[in-house]
């Protein structure tokens, strides 16, 4: 980001130096804890955080990966994230199409209510989901976690797709129908290619959101432990600290890389649209 900023003329030199330092400081403040986790993933220390690490080792990585509790948590989390994302893709696209194409009573309110779960503190969504689910006498289970996650995953897909719709000329859809394509063919040949990257970016973001969600999960889960919750519970057991660190590092890699990829996708397609 810094390197892309065009350098100012001499008058702005001093302030830009200050800005650079401030930016660097902020980045370090945000990233040093992350790097520490990475470093402690390789420490020979069993249970304490000493710095610098007394020695480095790779032995925790296979141990962490082979840990059955960690595996269960990881697979549960992946299944939840996949299903929540799939639900979000379908519902988000449908909602965005409706809001974009039609004028109907209460359209603004519906649009606002859709976005609300992402803006609301997770704790509120969590409490609300929990009371609603108990009220309806639905047992807390894998599926209630999926539903809880879907509420905020829908928002990301909805926002991405709606933004793309607004950048796509509406006359393209009319042109396709005019040339003999019915609604389904038009969606397949014209709409989908137009919103494809928006869907992918939305899906990746939704997946990442779901993957490391703790608060809503705590309220909507039965006795299931998703990976973030498992990690949290492990923090109380000093013995397993290196394994927890390794798992945390894997989570960082699993969520950060797709988000970077999603950013690339949307940035790239917005360039080519112009």
């Amino acid at each position: 980001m810094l390197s892309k900023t065009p350098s100012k003329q001499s008058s702005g030199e001093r302030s830009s130096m200050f800005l650079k330092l401030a930016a660097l400081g902020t980045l370090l403040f945000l990233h040093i804890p992350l790097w520490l986790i990475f470093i402690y993933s390789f420490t020979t220390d069993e249970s304490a955080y000493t710095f610098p690490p007394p020695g480095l080792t790779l032995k925790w990585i296979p141990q962490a990966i082979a840990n059955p509790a960690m595996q269960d948590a990881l697979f549960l989390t992946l299944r939840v994230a996949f299903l929540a994302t799939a639900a979000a893709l379908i519902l988000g696209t449908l909602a965005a199409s409706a809001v974009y194409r039609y004028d109907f009573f209460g359209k603004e309110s519906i649009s606002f209510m859709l976005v609300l779960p992402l803006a609301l503190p997770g704790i509120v969504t969590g409490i609300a989901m929990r009371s609603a689910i108990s009220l309806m006498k639905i047992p807390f289970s894998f599926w209630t976690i999926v539903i809880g996650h879907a509420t905020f995953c829908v928002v990301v897909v909805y926002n991405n797709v709606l933004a793309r719709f607004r950048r796509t000329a509406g006359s393209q859809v009319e042109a396709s129908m005019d040339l003999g394509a019915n609604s389904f063919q038009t969606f397949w040949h014209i709409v989908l290619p137009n919103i494809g990257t928006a869907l992918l970016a939305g899906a990746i973001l939704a997946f990442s959101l779901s993957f490391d969600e703790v608060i809503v999960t705590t309220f909507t889960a039965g006795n299931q432990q998703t990976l973030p919750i498992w990690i949290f519970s492990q923090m109380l057991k000093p013995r397993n600290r290196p394994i927890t660190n390794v798992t945390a590092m894997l989570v960082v890699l699993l969520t950060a890389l797709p988000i970077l990829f999603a950013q690339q996708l949307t940035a790239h397609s917005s360039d080519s649209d112009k």
Partner: protein
Amino acid sequence: MSDNTAIEFRDVSRVFSVKHENQSGEVRAVDNVSLQIKDGEFFSLLGPSGSGKTTSLRMIAGFDRPTSGQILLYGQNVSSLPPYARDVNTVFQDYALFPHMTVGENVAYGLMIKKVARAEREKRMDEMLDLVQLPGFAGRKPLQLSGGQRQRVALARALINHPKVLLLDEPLGALDLKLRQQMQVELKSIQQRVGITFIFVTHDQEEALTMSDRIAVFNQGKIEQVGTPAEIYEHPQTPFVAGFVGVSNLVTGPVAKRITNSDRTFSIRPEKIHLAASSAEIDGDMYAADGRVRDVIYLGLYTRYLVELDGGGDLVVVEQNLKTTSMDVMKVKSQNVRLFWKKEHARYVGG
């Protein structure tokens, strides 16, 4: 109902309900319009924005449906058919090319949807690109083309299905003047070659006069007049047509009475009026009016004079600079003059 009618409007209305600051009302975008467009015609819907011409076109295409009345395509009532079930294609104002497809895929889209075999598809796509003079452009993307080239691709794409009627929604609006004039000639020649009925929406009266076999002049959802360019220009039937198509002087009330001995409103085209010295003798088959030249605008090819009539009101007069120079015409400014024109050139319009 003769079989050489391509499109017929039978009492077609399109009413939009509007809500604005707690006031709800309705807009009659197209108001009880009846119209017949003949097979093979180049027909223009001419009018200012909001006059109902584009809504009429969209109803023929199927993007919009009449609130009441019927639209017939070669005798078949298509009023409620979806766009893809009508043998009609459209060239859009913003071209509406598909940016993720190549020029060739854009042009062949209609055939691809109809599941025409690939070889046949490519053959016809090449023919179409030849027709619009873009041979060899099949592999490019629409974003790599100029406005005029996109225009041609849109035309090729709309013609490839051999529609019964081609609709053009202000297709030349975004082009610069030189290119527009060139495309006008070309569109006309393409229309004659393919022999398809063209329905052309425009707000540019000059464009409509240049290209059309017949013109319908729209105003506030109604048709004011339908006729050939010459009829519309020479015999405007309403004050609106006289004012909208070309420049016209409308003379009303007492001023009209002083000139023609009748208070009926008439229109007179600026180029039909002659300027003479204030003492000039005028023949009996002419109308005459005296006035003072208030302004002279020299425009190279011709000069425009603004003459204030003695009885009130202004007349615009245009004379070609056949023998005069800019120095000559300027001398007339502030002079008293006599204007005259053939009686038959004064057109009584409406009311």
